[in-house]
């Protein structure tokens, strides 16, 4: 029916998405990007060329069959689109919001060679939100497999592994150290980017699959990984504890009051709801002029949170230039719209003491880009004599994180030299039956990669337990390893 589309025949411009006015949104925590409506999503779907050799699938870390789900949107079969996406991606409402699409699917989109790329992320989110609103869940018929699986950490890696194992019929328990589940999705990414209600909905779906969540459980200290296998009766364990340990600036003054990590700022604000102090008990005093060091997603979140909490001025300091900045393009754009000041090519050298242990200012030096370093980015070098001062009373550092040490301290698991867990290609650690994935293996990465790792580990786990998986996960004919041909699936046991 559909006539062959060409680059000339499709809508030339991306369908814009409604956003809250920057002036209004800096006063609240409501979601900035309002998402596509049904006609908008269908209009955007017309921009896909259905290339015979689609590049976008290869650009996606979990190989979502993108043209297939866009086609379903065009046919107004949104439920069908949801089934296609969830064949490989457990959390479309989350990933549609937080994936760095410009470096992934949209970055390689063929339309993008001439025009703006197809807005794949926005369409994915549209489908994910619709699924939440209509409570769509692909609840397979699950044949119990009599295996008990323990998942450590409830971030995207743990959630993905839990879902796959529950669908394979296992009895799954997720242990989380915090009092609420969700990992970075809960404590890190603020509501104006990823509302907590979306995270709640995804967790509820897991509960419908029979996954249990045990919060306030610090694994390693309450019981060890070894004890889970030897004493608590788990047949296999997945570790997805993330890379939450923040790096320090390591410059004079970094222990002053008013200097804190972005993790602390965001945890106080998001998880502990300190923005409602004193209606809640956790405080978060804010400076008049806040400087955030770093320019990743964490830094953008910290900047925009401070702006919303009422700081008079919020400044970003980053040692490389805007081109190298690792945050999602949309976040930098939104931050700029909201009036955040950027000092590119600038590095802090000292935080100045006001004499009473608090921050009075920050001394910085200008940088210039030299030869490319190991990461392929041009190395920033200080410009002699270019030091200057920024007046500030609060400094937030968002300069990366390291491996959380607790699992390493309390088990015999093999770690690499940076303290991350070592695994084989199937993501099994040095202890048989113990798998790991996400930031605790790779170092800080992305939501979709963590989720992909959780699913990959689940595949390894099923092989280890002797549960047969139907074909590779990326095969469009399977839904979480379950036959897609009917909606009343039957899991096939080896």
């Amino acid at each position: 029916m559909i006539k062959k589309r060409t680059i000339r025949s499709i809508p030339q411009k991306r369908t814009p998405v409604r956003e809250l006015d920057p002036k209004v949104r800096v006063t609240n925590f409501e979601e900035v990007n309002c998402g596509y409506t049904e006609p908008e999503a269908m209009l955007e779907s017309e921009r896909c060329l259905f290339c015979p050799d689609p590049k976008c699938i290869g650009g996606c870390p979990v190989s979502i069959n993108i043209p297939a789900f866009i086609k379903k949107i065009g046919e107004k079969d949104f439920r069908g689109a949801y089934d296609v996406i969830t064949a490989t991606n457990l959390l479309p409402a989350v990933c549609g919001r937080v994936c760095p699409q410009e470096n992934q699917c949209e970055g390689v989109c063929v339309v993008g060679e001439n025009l703006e790329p197809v807005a794949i992320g926005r369409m994915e989110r549209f489908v994910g939100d619709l699924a939440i609103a209509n409570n769509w869940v692909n609840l397979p018929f699950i044949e119990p497999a009599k295996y008990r699986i323990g998942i450590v950490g409830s971030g995207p890696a743990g959630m993905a592994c839990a879902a796959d194992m529950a669908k394979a019929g296992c009895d799954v328990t997720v242990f989380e150290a915090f009092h609420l589940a969700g990992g970075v999705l809960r404590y890190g990414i603020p509501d104006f980017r990823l509302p907590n209600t979306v995270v709640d909905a995804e967790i509820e779906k897991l509960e419908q699959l029979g996954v249990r969540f045990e919060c306030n459980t610090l694994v390693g200290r309450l019981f060890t990984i070894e004890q889970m296998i030897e004493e608590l009766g788990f047949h296999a364990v997945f570790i997805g504890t993330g890379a939450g340990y923040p790096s320090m600036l390591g410059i004079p003054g970094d222990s002053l009051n008013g200097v804190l990590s972005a993790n602390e700022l965001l945890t106080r604000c998001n998880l502990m709801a300190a923005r409602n102090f004193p209606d809640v008990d956790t405080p978060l005093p804010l400076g008049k002029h806040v400087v955030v060091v770093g320019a990743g997603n964490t830094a953008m979140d910290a900047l925009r949170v401070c702006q919303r909490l009422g700081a008079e001025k919020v400044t970003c300091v980053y040692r490389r230039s805007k081109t190298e900045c690792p945050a999602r393009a949309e976040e930098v754009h939104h931050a700029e719209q909201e009036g955040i000041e950027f000092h590119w090519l600038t590095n802090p050298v000292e935080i100045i003491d006001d004499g009473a242990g608090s921050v009075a200012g920050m001394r910085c030096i200008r940088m210039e880009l030299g030869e490319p370093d190991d990461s392929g980015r041009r190395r920033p070098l200080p410009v002699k004599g270019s030091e200057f001062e920024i007046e500030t009373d609060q400094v937030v550092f968002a300069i990366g994180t390291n491996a959380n040490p607790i699992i390493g301290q309390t088990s015999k698991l093999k770690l690499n030299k940076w303290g991350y867990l070592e695994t084989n290609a199937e993501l099994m650690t040095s202890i048989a039956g113990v798998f790991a994935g996400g930031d605790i293996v790779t170092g800080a990465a992305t939501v979709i990669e963590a989720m992909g790792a959780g699913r990959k580990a689940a595949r390894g786990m099923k092989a280890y337990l002797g549960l047969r998986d139907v074909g590779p996960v990326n095969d469009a004919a399977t839904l979480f390893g379950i036959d897609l041909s009917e909606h009343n699936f039957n899991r096939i046991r080896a």
Partner: protein
Amino acid sequence: MTREDYSDVTYMLEIHHPLMARAAKPGQFVIVMSHREGERIPLTIADFDAERGTITLVIQAVGKTTLEMQQTCRAGTSLYGMAGPMGIPSNPGSAKKVICVGGGLGVAPVYPQARALKQNGAYVIGVLGFRNKDLIFWEEKFRAICDELIICTDDGSAGLKGFVTDGINQALENHKDVGEVVAIGPPVMMKASAEATRARGVKTMVSLNPIMVDGTGMCGGCRVKIGDEVKFACVDGPDFDGHKVDFDDLMIRLRRYKEEERVATERWSETCRMRMVDGKVVPLPE
């Protein structure tokens, strides 16, 4: 939970958590949330009983959360959340003769360490400091496990008149072969204790109490300076070598939320018909 009050400001909660009672070791702590909107506050495990499945906390009512818990935590109630045991357990070491120093509230957390040392066969000298006679608690508990016990009060109303440092000096005079000192209490007290032993070169371990949020190494709010290194007390401690700790830095950082703490406490006192008098919360007259 069960509860016992030691004074107007100090109370003991015994919480049923069998799994944690089995895992707990001396020197570790828990993070408690009393209700959904509450703050996560760290409290040392003052005792644990694997058989009965209980964790004992001794709490001093100093601000909003601890005052509120003093009112709401009654026998039979439960907490919104308690996570732990957190931190690296104390290493009892091989010292044959040890002084265990507890100042004020530090008396409770030093108890499991003293008991573990005793069980390891060490000669244990207890030095406990209180402001006055009325605030003394757990004296009998300590007598049962210490080979010697020195009680100090600031006003001399019981035991030795003076600070714990006077008690430490006395013990060090009488015993030249003390291998280690363990000191827990307010930062000023731990600082003074570390100074008292520095000249004699006696190893001194202290348990630090910076402001914490998660207790899992995720926020860095609990960072402390140890020599020229920065450590996170919740995962790298809370026990550190007292001779290397930068106590002044710790004390400045503890003041970070003074203003907000005052606001929270005042607001809470108003709503429950209490008020602050001389820094103490008292009921409003009818």
